[in-house]
């Protein structure tokens, strides 16, 4: 029953005039996808720079807090852009995403990535040296980085696979 109402929601949304306009004006979807991917570039590269610092691979001449201060805004600020452009793509083809298991997976992975970013960020706000105080803390920081990177990789893969997996 829930699936049926999702079905009818998708058909209703696809029939709205907003959706019709996006579907008929050919350049809207590629343009919105371009903005989406540029915002993804900002988020993923920022996460990577922080993770590489947590692992001690890059930027080691600076404390973790300095790297985090530089790159964390570029993880959070593109998020509204990603949600807005993502919403436009959903409005254009509702069933393509909402009835697609890969899209649901992507949203789950996104929540996990946001959670792990906060797990790195919140302790730094209390104490900028938090992740550098002891060998144990440094190990946890490395674990956070090791968990974060595959999540972002999976989010990007899921995003691409939405185009290839049929809705249920």
């Amino acid at each position, binding site marked *: 029953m829930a699936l049926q109402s999702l079905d009818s929601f998708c058909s209703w949304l696809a029939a709205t005039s907003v959706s019709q306009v996006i579907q008929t004006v*050919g350049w809207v*979807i*590629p*343009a919105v*996808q*371009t903005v989406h*991917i*540029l915002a*993804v*570039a*900002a988020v*993923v*590269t*920022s996460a*990577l*720079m922080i993770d*590489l610092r947590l692992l001690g691979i*890059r*930027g080691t*001449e600076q404390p973790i807090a300095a790297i985090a201060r*530089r790159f964390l805004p570029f993880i959070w600020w593109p998020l509204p852009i990603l949600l807005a452009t993502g919403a436009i793509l959903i409005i254009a083809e509702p069933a393509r995403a909402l009835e697609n298991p890969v899209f649901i997976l992507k949203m789950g992975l996104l929540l996990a990535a946001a959670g792990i970013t906060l797990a790195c960020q919140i302790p730094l706000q209390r104490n900028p040296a938090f992740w550098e105080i002891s060998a144990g803390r440094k190990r946890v920081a490395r674990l956070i980085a090791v968990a974060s990177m595959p999540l972002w*990789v999976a989010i*990007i*893969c899921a*995003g*691409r*696979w939405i*185009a*290839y997996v049929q809705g249920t």
Partner: protein
Amino acid sequence: MLDQFLQSLQDTSIATAIREGETLFPWIECVHVLALTVVIGSIAIVDLRLIGLTSRDRSVIQTTASVLPVTWTAFTFAVITGGLLFASNATTYAHNFYFQVKIALIAMAGVNMAAYHLFLNRGADSWHTPQLTPFRARLVGGLSLCLWIAIAAFGRWIGFTINTPT
């Protein structure tokens, strides 16, 4: 002549496997997207520092030294995966307007970067703050940023003008 070469590229077993397989093309695309986001994102870090908008407490040299190895690693992956995607339908891509412009734009970004590293970055070790960063460096950064945004757009448009899922 060129078409013959493209056809034989497209007929190689690996290109055929990518074209005819169910999952190879999308997986290579995943790596391509992943690589290009890191390429564009990391180049943007340098460009924004050259322009003077971010990393303002860092010198240009510090910024490029920590970021460019990441850029080049990702760029290698982007070229390899892009080459594989191209090979799978070489004759079609080669005649696609958006593909042609994209390659031209990448070449321009390359020239812009080479001009910077060969001639324009003299004295860069004293560019500690944006105020000390000369106009020519800001110009290189701004141009690079615009080129890479356009490269992303033209790349996305290829998919919409060639018969692949978008």
